[in-house]
């Protein structure tokens, strides 16, 4: 099993529902977030282009965060989801330095926190909170090894890219373009 997410930049309006749904789902403290919205504008008025992306931990195939963790608190579970065992985390910050996406942060309680692909939901067959809430349905989730999963299907149909592929982490959040 290999969980992945695809995000349709053509449909996303940047409403940030994914951000707030994640916060209420996962008790993300105020002032922090596990996912966020980026807007890119290019051109000169009136010849303009804009891309909006909902971003989060890329649940990389090659995980520098897990590799650099000195205690094993950062680890990989079923489906390639990268998680942090809070009680094993000493808060050294190595994994934060190691992440090219800056997807991790220090929780005020001292441990490192990040997107979990809502493993508590997906393990029960539900979508992640962000996917389930998105009003534009621009987020697709599923198992890449299952060719009928929404994410496998959309990646076959559409052109896509990933963020910072040159960082060499094999990110598993795909952006449909």
């Amino acid at each position: 099993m290999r969980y992945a997410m695809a995000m349709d930049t053509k449909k996303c309006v940047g409403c940030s529902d994914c951000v707030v749904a994640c916060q209420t789902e996962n008790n993300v403290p105020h002032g922090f977030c596990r996912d966020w919205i980026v807007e890119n504008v290019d051109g000169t008025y009136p010849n303009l282009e804009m891309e909006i992306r909902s971003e989060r931990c890329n649940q990389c195939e090659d995980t520098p965060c897990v590799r650099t963790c000195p205690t094993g608190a950062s680890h990989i579970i079923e489906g390639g989801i990268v998680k942090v065992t809070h009680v094993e985390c000493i808060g050294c910050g190595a994994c934060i330095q190691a992440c090219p996406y800056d997807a991790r942060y220090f929780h005020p309680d001292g441990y490192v926190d990040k997107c979990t692909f809502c493993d508590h939901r997906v393990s029960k067959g539900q979508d992640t909170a962000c996917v389930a809430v998105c009003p534009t349905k621009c987020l697709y989730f599923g198992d890449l090894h299952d060719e009928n999963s929404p994410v496998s299907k959309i990646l076959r149909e559409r052109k896509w890219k990933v963020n910072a592929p040159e960082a060499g982490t094999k990110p598993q959040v795909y952006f449909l373009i």
Partner: protein
Amino acid sequence: MKKTSRRDFIKISTLGVGGLTMLNPVLNWVPGFMPKEKTPVDESKAKRFPTFCEVCFWKCAGFTYLNDEGNIQKIVGNDDDPHSNGRFCPRGTGGVGLYYDNDRLKEPLMRVVENGKSVFKPVTWEKALDFIADKMKIIAKKHGPESMALLYHASSGSYFHHMLEAYGTANAAKPSYAQCLGPREAAFVATFGAGLSSPEPTDVKNTKCLVLIGNHVGENMHNGYVQEVSDAIDRGASIITVDPRFSTIASKSKFWLPIKPATDIALLLSWIHVLIYEELYDKKYVEQYAFGFEELKLHVKNYTPEWAYTQTDIRPEDIRNSAYEMAKASPAVIIHPGRHTTWYGDDTQRLRAMAILNALLGSYGRKGGFYFPESKKVPEYPSPAYPHPKWTWKDITKPTYKGAGTGLANDLIKASLPNSESPYKIKGWFVVGTNLLTTVPDKSITLKAIQNLELMVVVDTMPMEITGYADIVLPECTYLERYDDIRSNQHRYPNIALRMPAAEPRWQSKPGWWIAREIGVRLGLQDYFKWTNVEEELDWKFKQMGTSLEEMQKIGVKVYEKHKPLYLADGEEYFFNTNTGKIELYSIDLEEKGYDAMPRYTEHKQPDDQFYRLIYGRAPMHTFGRTVNSPHLSDLMSENTLWVNPSVAKIWDLHNEQYIWLKNQDSVISSFPIKVRITERIRHDSVYMVHGFGKTNDKLSRSYGKGIDDTELITNVKIDPIMGGTGMRENFVTFVTKNPHQKEQNA
């Protein structure tokens, strides 16, 4: 697939020096050693209560979930609800913040004079309600009950409406009419004999071409609408966006027409010209259903794309090509009427032009155009007939604004002014869930009117600008802590939804139905409130509709069978509720009332040198100014920014993130500064900001002083002569880079 797993780690125990590893689970049990982690709610086991959202007027239905501690954790959409389809928007999802906001109104407050200074004193509910009832009795005796008015924009308004009608006044207005969607209602009534109401019956789901005139769907987060637009993008429908700003939806459009502001009617008329003179309109449809085609044809003869170019800055070929795109999709095309349409004062006519375009393209009553909505009638709980008021808002408004469909908030405010010459005078206000000072432009008038009131009651959940002027402030509990009247909005299928409390009201706040009832009882109107608890009333109503409170508490939403078709059948006879029974391209009704029967283009003022048109809009994470203090939503966007074109920024030497003040054409200076965002997304002759920020009530800890309130700078109000709407887009601002309030502070 190579996968690292925790088993790959070399634990000391395997090296034979165990011990510390064993300590791990032990230490984790030591109480207080680790802060207890909150685990996510298990939806299959958690307690949940149905509700429908109160964060905006779309009123999506969902469920409020409690966590293990029994506190409100999250709100999730109800899959059966056609408004949300199980997906809440960010404001709805962040609605929990409204409940958890500690800045909320906590207890009834009464204005008293202490040491010559007016202050709010906390009082008991008894005292507050007695005071209100006594005052209302005096007003009824002195001026007649008609002189009480209800200004509202909240679900609980319906119980106050009921109470006040029983008391003897029918003067009620929502700012959502004359400050927002009024012009389109008036225009569609004049054209098709029916308004659009909410949610708009636009069949976006099936459209092939969506035309948006300044409508920034996606930034307006009207949930079902946004969802259908997203589906339309998926289906490859073409979108045509007319906007001086490169809005989110403009970036997803096949045609973005960056129009010179205030020239929309020129573009619309030239589109009509192209459709008619290039014979691209739906001939069969127009012939069968429309009235006044020849007059229209003659009327638009000179409105060529070449002429429109001189007004709009949009090239003739772009005008033609976009018109062809619409014609190609006809009748599955929507010239979307939008919602906030009070711009330049000739708004009803602009919306008329849009309605006419829809008629020419044959989209009204057609698949992919406008469908015929249906709603479920909610029966009234048995109570005596209301007393007949001697006069109503119609007597105030209708002589001037003959096309007004409901009460106008701005007109009721004017009727409250001391120098009002009208014989119909308003002496008392109930302000329920609307912050009049930031919703109705030119607040100096509102403030003058307030000074003249004998009673002003504000019912709200949050301290707002308006609460500061009340005689009595009544803290309403949030929608997550109360029952409200049944939601029954139009949609493709008739449907109803229940809102019920998921928690006890915090502090001393109370539900609106309770407040309205208590005042009613004190006014001697017990007969109108024969139920003692709202559950009783709701259950009775639900039972009339073939369900029950008990059932609704489980399902939240009930969808009924349809009784009429969504679309016109091919060649179907259809009676439009207009003078001619047809779609009036030429409006007999408007002509009779003394207005133009067909939309005309008039040039509007353009900004003077060094001034820029103030354009405002929505952000998807906020509703008006009502959510900017919400813990969750202020996290997403805590202040607005001023969009400035790079060429303008260069002239003024502005840089990104710089804070500046604004001064409008009437020399009104903003209370607070705003952060500059230099962006290509806005025209050089305009600036843009999101509405609803710049809160001046310092009780709002997260939003006080953050950004600029655009309403403050809207002092030039262009009144729509037809329906009395307040056009707000003819205001111009210039930049003030040094703190203009510094001097006052020093003095």
